[in-house]
């Protein structure tokens, strides 16, 4: 698709456009934070509980840390968890879904395992595991993908592989002796990649929300100052009762706006693929 016919698609598809703008903004914010932060986010740089001002755009915390700098700093861990977990989700989901859909012998056992994962209380389980293993942001992304992400993706992938399998060109490939792994991981994957990438965007949202919940319960990797960890710190310091709304309002809104952006992107892409 060239840039020329991308533009009309964007203007016609408001969801896609809005989602793209939101997601690009937050990605840019996270990258920007790698090079420049107004204040050191981890150190006390001003008065305690200062409301938003020009010097401290989003105010300060109970020990005088700059919330604005923390917000930029936290974007990188939140986004990293979201995208990394989404990536792992799609890798597992594609592998399981394609194998289950294409090889009928593997269908039943793999789908049973998927059902078992879907029947478990995933978030409480994750809380308990995180309490015992004390995850970093990388291991937490992995845990989220393994426990929460992949079963849904695997199901979607499987059902589209099942309908793809009866297509003439796949039959032809099979009859002409192309090895199955080549059909599965070259021909089929090419066709379901757009759909499954779209679907895995939802697991990015789930990962961001899950990581925030883990932080809030107190088992997340809160030393990375992700947005969830910021809300947790504010809650522990009773910021609500002090009326320090600036401390937790912005990280929470950012999580919601970023996730909505991802959701809009996914719905927008979905409607494009349906048209094609």
């Amino acid at each position, binding site marked *: 698709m060239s840039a020329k016919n991308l533009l009309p698609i964007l203007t016609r598809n408001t969801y896609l456009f809005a989602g793209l703008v939101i997601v690009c903004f937050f990605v840019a914010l996270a990258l920007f934070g790698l090079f420049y932060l107004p204040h050191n986010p981890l150190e006390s740089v001003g008065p305690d509980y200062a409301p938003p001002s020009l010097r401290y755009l989003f105010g300060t915390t109970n020990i005088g840390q700059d919330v604005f700098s923390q917000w930029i700093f936290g974007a990188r861990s939140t986004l990293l968890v979201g995208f990394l977990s989404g990536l792992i989700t799609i890798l597992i989901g594609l592998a399981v879904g394609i194998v289950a859909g294409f090889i009928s012998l593997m269908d039943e056992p793999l789908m049973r395992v998927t059902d078992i994962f879907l029947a478990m209380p995933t978030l409480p389980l*994750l809380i308990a595991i995180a309490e015992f293993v004390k995850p970093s942001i990388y291991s937490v992304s992995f845990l989220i993908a393994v426990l929460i992400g992949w079963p849904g993706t695997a199901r979607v992938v499987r059902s589209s592989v099942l309908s793809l399998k009866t297509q003439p060109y796949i039959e032809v490939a099979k009859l002409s002796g192309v090895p199955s792994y080549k059909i599965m991981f070259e021909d089929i994957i090419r066709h379901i990649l757009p759909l499954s990438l779209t679907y895995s965007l939802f697991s990015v949202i789930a990962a961001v929300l899950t990581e925030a919940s883990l932080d809030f319960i*107190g088992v997340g990797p809160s030393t990375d100052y992700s947005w969830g960890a910021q809300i947790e710190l504010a809650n522990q310091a009773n910021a609500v009762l002090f009326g320090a709304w600036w401390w937790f309002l912005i990280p929470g809104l950012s999580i919601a706006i970023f996730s909505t952006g991802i959701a809009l992107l996914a719905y927008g892409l979905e409607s494009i693929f349906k048209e094609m």
Partner: protein
Amino acid sequence: MVRFGDISRRYTKRYLVKRIFTLFVALFAVLILNFLLPHMMPGNFLTFYEESLQRQHPGVNVKPIVDRVAQIYGLNAPFYEQFYHYLREILSFDPNFGPSFQYYPMNAWNVVVYAVKWTLILLGSSQMISWSLGILIGVYMAFNKGKILDKILQPTFYFLSTIPLFWIGLVFILVFAVYFKVLPPSGAYSVVPTLGSVLRHLVLPLLVIVIGTLPTHALVVRSAALEVLSSDFVQAIRAQTLKKITFLNIVLKNSLLPSLTQLFLSIGYLIGGIYTVEVTFSYPGMGSVIYNAISAQDYPVIQASLYLTTLVVILANLAADLLYPIVDPRVSYV
């Protein structure tokens, strides 16, 4: 999503047997994980126990106590014997996870059993409200597809369903308890649990969970109802010019199954979300128990709560499967 016409083929007796088997395996997997988790912890459970005893009671000779604990838990026995011992303790009528570290003589199981009723109140009442409201709104949106309200509600619902529940809770405390001081910010009742005070304390957490979960229900019902509306039999009914209310009834009935599936599939995740809401409001349910247990490193309580949560979720899933034939006459297990 269940495809139309597939339903009676999908939900057969064989399906039910498979489902029950799956649920049992899921429960067993959590049981095994529950057993393995303390073993996966960095460091040894016993040395940890010894250290925390020493920290809390300096000067006491802890060695005999630790030895006794090791004996009680059979920690010196080989691995498979420990597992057998664990299973026998857990799978009894009164599961024994050992005494809680925090509330020492009290059994960890009793701590969670006391808490679970508050969680169930929150879960039950909130889902009853948000599910039934979600169905009404979802069907309404489907009937008015593409009109202005549907166009506004859709992105709004995407937004609402992605807000972390506990954050809505914090905002509500700020607005209703700190600024306007109309509702209590924390706890489940005042000094004594009278009905009035329980209800007053229930309002905010309930509202938070309803706001957080209603959008998903509405969106699921909306797409299910749209699918029903475009199916042939509905077109035929439409052509017969039935009364609007009869027509609505038919669409409603046919959209119920997907939304019920969604409701029960999401409980496993939702219950974790409810835990965070309980923490926000210091509501005395399982979430607060887990939260306190985590900060006190009260491992028996964490294990007991994971087990009880799994039981609740699996029983809910089973109930859903048994409910299907009542909701949708096309489903029959006979």
